[in-house]
């Protein structure tokens, strides 16, 4: 049952991701992206990673996407005021996209069939075990990444201050 659910949800993720890039209206794109993130949440639940699922739900769907939507609604983009793109930009875009595809396919071919960590220990994604792992063996990387985030936050606040500091 788990496998069939996975395939249905995976198909939905791919479909909605494609809709993100194919829809003309940027607000629709963001809304499709939100649905895509929701399907990711379902994937996490299927892997029994409840904490990751709910954090993905809160942070990506509930906060980051709200900000995206906020900015897009303020800009109110539509076809009339979209700047015309020169053919050069389009060609460069196509070449860059093809390079990305080649790199992705190459790197995916190079990787061996993964040996999923979560399936070895199905309880790892539960919040108690995850907390023990994060504050035990992975203490230093965890603290370092929090300092990184704090630095980024302070930087963002400084950038918004226009007057001399």
């Amino acid at each position, binding site marked *: 049952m788990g496998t069939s659910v996975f395939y249905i949800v995976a198909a939905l993720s791919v479909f909605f991701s494609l809709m993100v890039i194919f829809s003309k209206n940027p607000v629709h794109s963001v809304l499709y992206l*939100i649905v895509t993130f929701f399907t990711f949440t379902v994937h996490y639940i299927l892997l029994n990673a*409840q904490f990751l699922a709910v954090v993905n739900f809160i942070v990506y*769907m*509930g*906060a980051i996407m709200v900000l995206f*939507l906020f900015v897009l*609604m303020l800009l109110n983009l539509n076809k009339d005021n979209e700047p015309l793109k020169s053919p050069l930009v389009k060609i460069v875009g196509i070449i860059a996209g093809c390079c990305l595809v080649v790199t992705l396919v190459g790197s995916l071919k190079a990787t061996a069939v993964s040996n999923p960590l979560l399936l070895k220990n199905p309880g790892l994604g539960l*919040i108690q075990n995850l907390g023990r792992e994060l504050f035990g063996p992975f203490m230093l990387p965890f603290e370092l990444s929090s300092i990184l985030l704090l630095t980024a936050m302070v930087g963002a606040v400084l950038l918004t201050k226009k007057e001399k500091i």
Partner: protein
Amino acid sequence: MEIAFVLEKFILVTIIFAISLVIAMYSTYAERKVAAFLQDRLGPDRAGPFGILQPLADGVKMFMKEEIVPTNSNKWLFMVGPGLAMLTACIGTAVIPWGTAIQIGERVIPLQVTDINVGLLYIFGVVSLGVYGVMIGGWASNNKYSLLSAIRAASQNISYEIAMGLSIIALLLVSGTLSLKEIVEQQHGWHWNVIYQPIGFILFLICAFAETNRAPFDLPECETELIGGYHTEYSSMKLGFYLFAEYINMFVSSAVIASLYFGGYNYPGMDWVLQHTGTTIGPLIGTLVFFIKIFAFIFFFMWVRWTIPRFRYDQLMHLGWKVLIPLAIANIIVTGVVIAIIEKF
């Protein structure tokens, strides 16, 4: 998965859904009666004795009104908006423990739809999702007032979510679990979390007001500046859904506050009552107590609405970012230090 289990959960979900709708319906009536009481008026008293059929009359009126979809609006999203508002308002009830398990015959039925071990974060996620209904509806209306209101709602929601999350972290330090069932069980008798976390409770309460867009934080529907706010272009039952979702949100957040800080179904002397009434009636008394607490909070929501004037937008942002967040962080630090000292000695 046995068929009885599915049936049991299905019945429980239906009952909770029906109860939340009825309570939301009568909250609209209660709101008008409370407003009348606070302003020394009578309030609605025409439909039925004491006007208790007023919500039905309002509902019928909403259904009978003409459906208007603005010409240049985004038709599909215009319809999705109110539906999403209702959906996100209703799904929060799934993790709230309504009572201890009741025993009917041989079968023990837990009065909670699901006890996930990240229940508190689930509530938080549902709350953060709640803004989409307002945002999508406001944007799809293609009206500048609606759009401004949607943007206000988004920034207000995000600002107060942070303070709310931080106030929950202090509660987590005390309880040590994210499961709502365990948090409520820890508050057995009179050991309610509000005694250990008074500042956390006040912060959470203020943020709950902001997240449900209730006065004094009802800036997204500030009629002196924005006509009707995000639902300016809405008519008929779509408008009804938006108004209704607000009352369901109020009910759900009252239930969350009651179970996080005011002991949920726990009350002093509950062991004695449980011994003398048995395992069928006893838990139901607990549920009754829980609902009394919820009603008290709903009344508090209304009382505040008719007492305190609306904040100005800059005051709102100032309160959220410069008062509540530092206070919440200080609360976390103090709580952590106190817990460390208690564990040491």
